[in-house]
């Protein structure tokens, strides 16, 4: 399919693909096996300006939008979702600054982020606050010129590896969701430490850790936006980044599909390559159709966001929901097409299937996406009356 990408978008896709094929594919198995953070690859991405893609030019970036980011994320995901999660979570952590940061904050942080000198992480989730993000218990108390943070964030991607953390904490518990605020916390701040590195089913090149705040003092200027805006910051951040999770789904599914087709042409049973069997062809046909439908939705939503649309929650939830449910199904089917070989670690599809599962869980589970879409439908219906 031709999505009428601009010359620059094609250039971004080709370079991301080259990085994926030359630098990620040869390493992905070992990164998965050793659960190793992909610093080498992050350096390559930095040198290739990939971290600056969605950051405005005045802060050293390339000034591109969601679509370009989605294209890059898709290509990296085709090779390894662990690596692409590391890259995409960096964007997730940067959105609060991009969307709500002050001019001083942007000047201070964005150039290093664009250059890939500093990685970013986003800290919302806690042990008792997953889908119910309003249940967060980490507090930030203003004392003189400083906020004092206390509490623990759980399962934070890039935790420990990143230099910059955007954190949601309660400044006024009595106000509930309206009492949350967003902050910038730098690694190395006294009172800020990291918990254990989680052992995961998939995306094992990506690091997931606890962030622990014990009387961690940060300058008052590190608040993003105003007190009480924390949830708006978090929700708008997720609205923007979710389409990227959709792009991850398209990428990993394409990667698994390509492997399945290659295998099906070579594998001979009953005297014929298995791709000649209609049952296999139909599976591949469904996979290809689903991938293309998801890609079309993801690109359209990314373009819609880039157009400056205000209300993007429903659209971005749809892109994430559809593309990641698709990715789970397609990666499972890729294993099926390849039979026992698909199940073996010698081939990459079992990893892709393990990896794909996370996409239905993080940045809001797919049940929560359906809730978001459902609530938007109710609102729209009420408006019509």
């Amino acid at each position, binding site marked *: 399919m031709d999505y009428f990408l601009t010359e620059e978008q094609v*250039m971004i896709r080709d370079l991301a693909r080259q990085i994926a094929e030359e630098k990620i594919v040869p390493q992905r198995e070992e990164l998965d096996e050793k659960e190793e953070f992909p610093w080498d690859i992050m350096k390559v991405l930095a040198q*290739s*300006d990939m971290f600056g893609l969605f950051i405005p030019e005045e802060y050293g970036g390339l000034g591109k939008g969601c679509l370009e980011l989605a294209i890059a994320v898709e290509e990296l995901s085709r090779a390894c979702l662990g690596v692409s999660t590391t890259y995409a979570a960096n964007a997730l952590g940067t959105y609060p600054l991009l969307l709500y940061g002050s001019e001083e904050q942007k000047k201070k942080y964005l150039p290093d982020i664009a250059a890939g000198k500093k990685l970013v992480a986003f800290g919302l989730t806690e042990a008792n606050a997953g889908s119910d993000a309003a249940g967060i218990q980490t507090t930030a108390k203003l004392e003189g010129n400083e906020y004092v943070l206390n509490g623990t964030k759980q399962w934070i991607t890039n935790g420990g590896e990143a230099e910059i953390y955007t954190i949601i904490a309660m400044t006024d518990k009595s106000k509930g969701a309206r009492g949350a605020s967003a902050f910038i916390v730098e690694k190395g701040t006294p009172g800020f430490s990291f918990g254990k590195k989680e052992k995961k089913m998939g995306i094992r090149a990506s690091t997931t850790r606890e962030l622990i705040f014990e009387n961690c003092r940060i300058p008052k200027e590190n608040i993003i936006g105003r007190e009480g805006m924390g949830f708006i910051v978090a929700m708008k951040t997720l609205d923007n980044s979710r389409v990227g999770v959709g792009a991850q789904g398209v990428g990993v599914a394409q990667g698994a599909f390509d492997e399945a087709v290659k295998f099906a042409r070579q594998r001979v049973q009953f005297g014929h390559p298995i791709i000649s069997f209609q049952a296999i062809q139909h599976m591949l046909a469904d996979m290809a159709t689903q991938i293309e439908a998801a890609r079309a939705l993801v690109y359209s939503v990314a373009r819609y966001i880039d157009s400056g649309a205000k209300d993007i929650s429903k659209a971005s939830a749809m892109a994430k929901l559809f593309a990641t449910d698709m990715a789970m199904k397609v990666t499972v089917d890729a294993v099926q097409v390849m039979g026992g070989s698909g199940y073996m670690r010698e081939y990459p599809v079992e990893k892709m299937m393990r990896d794909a599962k996370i996409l239905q869980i993080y940045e809001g589970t797919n049940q929560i996406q359906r809730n978001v879409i459902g609530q938007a439908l109710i609102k729209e219906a009420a408006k019509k009356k």
Partner: protein
Amino acid sequence: MNIVVCIKQVPDAAEVKINPETGTLIREGVPSIINPYDMHAIEAAVQIKEKTSGKVTAITMGPPQAETALRDAISLGVDEAILLTDKAFAGSDTLATSYTLSKTIEKLSPDIIICGKQAIDGDTAQVGPEVAEFLNIPHVAYVRKIEDIGEKSIRVQRLMEEGYDVVESTLPVLLTVVKELNEPRLPSLKGKMAAKKAEIKKWTAADIGADEKDVGLKGSPTQVKNIFAPEPKKDRQMLEGTPEEQTDALIKKLMELKCL
């Protein structure tokens, strides 16, 4: 530091086939790439620039299509590019190529000139040293490491069959480089965008003040009579076993053949 890198556009070796009748390369439809050794030359030049500031100019002599190689070089961090292209340059052998490159380099007065060890198509490994001779400056071939660069001198490691030499030279100097030197980077997005917009200077024999009788076919004493792939030697025998067994078998064989 002002650096000039000489690059050559070559057919992608992985895709080249040889015409069995004429023994020449079939170039039609084969994608062109920057000579792989020259990728290391570019990387070295860009690294030196990043450390010392300055400018990297890439030059190539070739047909108009060689412009793409220069644009690729810009996407990798090269600042300026010059394409030496002129009908008069056609048919250059290594002497004429080196003369043409050296006349160009004279105009740019660089501190360091970097070439690949050899081109994967021509394969002579002569151009680098010949350019240095024309320029009457020192050269170090097969550089595997740049240890130090001073204001007026440079210290490098030269790859030898066993181990390496440490060589110090005054500047300006010409280096030819081997793959051990570095790992060429991938292009950057900003580099690619710059490459798309960059103006590639095109210089002719007149622009570099070259003497017409010294360029192209006229300036090339080499005459190609025939190009062929040598027949593989047929009656060969591989000896196996421990080194002792192999030497014993070898001596026996040589005595059989009355060589000993």
